[in-house]
């Protein structure tokens, strides 16, 4: 009896699915269109891989889903929770009220119930003022029946979460379990507005996440599969359904992350540059220790500035469907627009009328696809300069992501990656692994479980060694909590950043631990 896992990645255009065996070998794969309701696309893709694989349904023990449900909900402002925004920090922070600096219509949707409560902490953990519990009780009564989700953000909660936890207890006491509570200390790091925005967005997609999770679990049940269900998150690790429903915001960037992780697995490389060529754009990211390098800049989601850790990517407007325009005088442009998912009808090699990057590659004999006679009449010399330009665009993006001039391996994945040559400037080698079209679904299926903490330590008081040790063991505990096997845990990332202008050597420490799924969980299911 084997142990199989399903990996699904729902992207803007495609829903990809794979079935892997216990050695992570690909048993079956499919790529189908993402549907308007998302769920139908998932059912269809899942059904296809299971039917074609001919494995016993009881042997499928895990199902991992990477999805854009929450991202879409935020961008389209659809299906969002009715939320209350509670900031604990008054009298501090009043000079910049919640949701200032986010787009007007998002502010209108999410800013109906905004409260500023006395409380919060100093950078060293002292209380600014004591928490105004009476006010919290009053707020609870006021929002009763009007909201179903509350975002709580307290000043310096990454240093002390006492006030946020007390607020949660009060809301639970008055409002019961039906109202979801999102605490900022569990979501973001230092930087009040960015963390608050992330917490607000999190609170607003709790229902969306729940619907997605229920849909996925029901789809599995309909297929007769009783598997442990996990969601992929931004950092390339998994979270349980319970966790995903509480912290759905952690799923918003799992797509690119999954494709990077899948590329790492397929290319059998832990450090490399990954180029994921889709229909419309190509994402270039960097793998370090098999994980995506994270962006150090603020990230905007739906126009709101947040301080999440997101994969550091460059996106260029170049994909398999990118439109190539040639003028009378021989000048040409490449994109940025694309025929996208309509490539099979629009591209010249498929009988269409639009010259795409794919047509160029076929005409030059770089790939075999469609009907090459339809592009045989085109000026080869000119197409060659177009092709060189395409390659140059990718090489430039690769170079931008590099940290030094040394050549580094490049892994090509994604449906459009066939366009690119097997030699690129700046690359020590170029790998286009098998199954690279569904690297993202594979990345979803093979993910590990992680735990992460971020805290401020006063190094003069406890010393750097001790601070790091304490942070490491907390991160490991988080990972075990999330379902990781304690024996397989490794620290995958440590970062300590000194805070300028403060004495006592105040330093922000961030540690991430990751490990394999705990076998005990597997046994319990299998």
């Amino acid at each position, binding site marked *: 009896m084997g142990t199989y896992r399903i990996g699904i990645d729902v992207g803007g255009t495609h829903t990809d699915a794979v079935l892997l065996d216990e050695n992570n070998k690909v048993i079956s794969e499919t790529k189908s269109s993402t549907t308007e309701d998302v769920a139908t696309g998932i059912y269809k893709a899942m059904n296809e891989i299971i039917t074609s694989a001919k494995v016993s349904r009881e042997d499928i023990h895990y199902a991992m889903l990477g999805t854009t449900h929450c991202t879409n909900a935020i961008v389209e402002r659809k299906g969002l929770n009715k939320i209350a925004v509670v900031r604990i*920090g*008054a*009298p*501090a*922070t*009043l*000079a*910049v*009220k919640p949701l*200032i*600096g986010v787009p007007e219509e998002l502010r209108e949707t999410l800013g109906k119930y905004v409260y500023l409560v006395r409380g*919060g902490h*100093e*950078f*060293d953990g*002292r209380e*600014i*003022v004591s928490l105004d519990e009476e006010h919290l009780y009053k707020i609870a009564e006021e929002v009763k029946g009007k909201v179903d989700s509350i975002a709580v953000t307290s*000043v*310096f909660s990454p240093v002390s979460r006492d006030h946020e936890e007390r607020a949660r207890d009060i809301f639970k006491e008055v409002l019961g379990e039906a109202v979801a509570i999102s605490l900022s200390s569990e979501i973001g790091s*230092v*930087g*009040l*507005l960015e963390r608050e925005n992330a917490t607000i967005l999190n609170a607003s997609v709790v229902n969306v996440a729940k619907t997605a999770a229920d849909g996925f679990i029901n789809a599995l049940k309909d297929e007769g599969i009783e598997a442990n269900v996990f969601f992929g998150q931004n950092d390339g690790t998994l979270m349980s359904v319970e966790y995903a429903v509480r912290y759905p915001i952690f799923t918003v960037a799992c797509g690119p992350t999954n494709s990077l992780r899948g590329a790492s697995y397929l290319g059998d490389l832990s450090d490399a540059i990954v180029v994921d060529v889709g229909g419309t754009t190509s994402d270039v990211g960097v793998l370090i220790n098999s994980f995506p390098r994270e962006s*150090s*800049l603020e990230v905007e989601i739906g126009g709101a500035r947040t301080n999440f850790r997101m994969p550091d990517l460059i996106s260029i407007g170049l994909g398999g469907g990118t439109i190539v325009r040639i003028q009378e005088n021989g000048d040409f442009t490449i994109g940025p627009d694309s025929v996208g998912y309509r490539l099979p009808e629009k591209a010249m090699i498929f009988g269409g009328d639009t010259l795409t990057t794919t047509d160029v590659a076929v005409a030059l004999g770089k790939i075999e696809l469609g009907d090459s006679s339809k592009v045989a009449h085109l000026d080869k010399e000119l197409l060659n300069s177009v092709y060189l330009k395409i390659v140059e665009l990718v090489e430039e993006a690769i170079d*931008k*992501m*590099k*940290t*030094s*001039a040394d050549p580094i391996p490049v892994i090509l994945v994604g449906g459009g990656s066939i366009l690119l040559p097997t030699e690129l400037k700046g690359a020590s080698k170029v790998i286009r692994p098998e199954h690279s079209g569904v690297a993202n679904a594979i990345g979803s299926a093979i993910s590990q479980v992680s735990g992460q903490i971020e805290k401020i330590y006063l190094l003069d008081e406890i010393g750097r060694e001790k601070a790091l040790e304490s942070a490491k063991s907390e991160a490991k505990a988080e990972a075990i909590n999330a379902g990781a096997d304690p024996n397989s845990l490794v620290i995958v990332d440590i970062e300590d*950043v*000194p*805070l*300028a*202008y*403060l*004495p*006592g*050597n*105040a*330093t922000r420490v961030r540690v991430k631990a990751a490990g394999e799924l705990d076998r005990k969980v597997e046994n319990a299911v299998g």
Partner: protein
Amino acid sequence: MREIGKQEIEDIAVGAALLGTGGGGDPYIGKLMALQAIEEHGPVTVLDLDEVPDDALVVPSSMMGAPTVMLEKIPSGEEAIEAFQKLEEYLGKKIYATFPIEAGGVNSMLPFALAARLGLPVIDADGMGRAFPELQMVTFYLDGISATPAVIADEKGNTAVLSTIDNVWTERIARAATIQMGGSVMNAMYSMTGKNLKESGIRNILKLEEEIGRTIRLAKANNVNAIQEVLKTVGGFELFRGKVTDINRKTETGFARGVATFEGVGEYKNETLQLRFQNEHLLAQTEKRLLCVTPDLIAVLDAETGLPITTEGIRYGSRCVVIGIPCHPKWRTEKGIETVGPKYFGYDVDYIPVEELVHKEVTK
């Protein structure tokens, strides 16, 4: 006299970030404070320095402490008001107008947040023409103007009036109190007369900041090179073009020190630039040449957009253009160099004006 609304604030913030030469903290919070205050209380009046009476009491409004703390514990807005009121009480005189102490980071924006709330005008002048980390590093100090009597105030309602023997002691005591007050406070220091400011301040700094911001914002729409336009606006020089290949930060005595290494591209190919910073960028040199050194300004701009990058924002792989800008002549005096020159920051080089280092004429 002119009015400053939201778009002007956006532009001034970009210009201040550039003249802030990497330091002074992210102006983002200050900008939001100014925007909220203008939204609630209306636009702010800006005065040319010549419009200020000689005997008027004028006071800069600024923050002291860790910008990182301010990003988390945002001010209430009352601190700056309390500091001003306490100072008026102590001096027995009404404050006529406020102005920025420095052209950089969050301090460039705070006077607007306060002015909108109090209905005070903001004067188009500052005390640095750039950003520096320490209290005595202002042109006022060079002319012997005292930082005290000074008031620092926190959001809890605590205020402290400082009366010290010199500005170095003001710095020491204020910093110690700042920690106890929670790591970030608002202050009212360097109160002076209109006449003092006319003699010792740096004029038209807001106009310059706004012009820089507008130039960068409109460059794309006007299809011109943002960086070339900025160089014209500030009278600066391109020092280097390259890609960040290493960044090494450490904290010593409360300051974020470090070195960023850039690998040259284009005409700078095969050259490496080292940029040394202590909150602000202070020294730029290649293997062979010294290119620019404090108090001349060194700004790092995004090669594509021309937007300024702070020391915290410098990251591996960033494509940048490093530019040098001559500082205000007040800094090029003996006392100026002593106060903010390379030796003060522990660099063993002599100050040489940037235009001499790059063999160019000053155009502005």
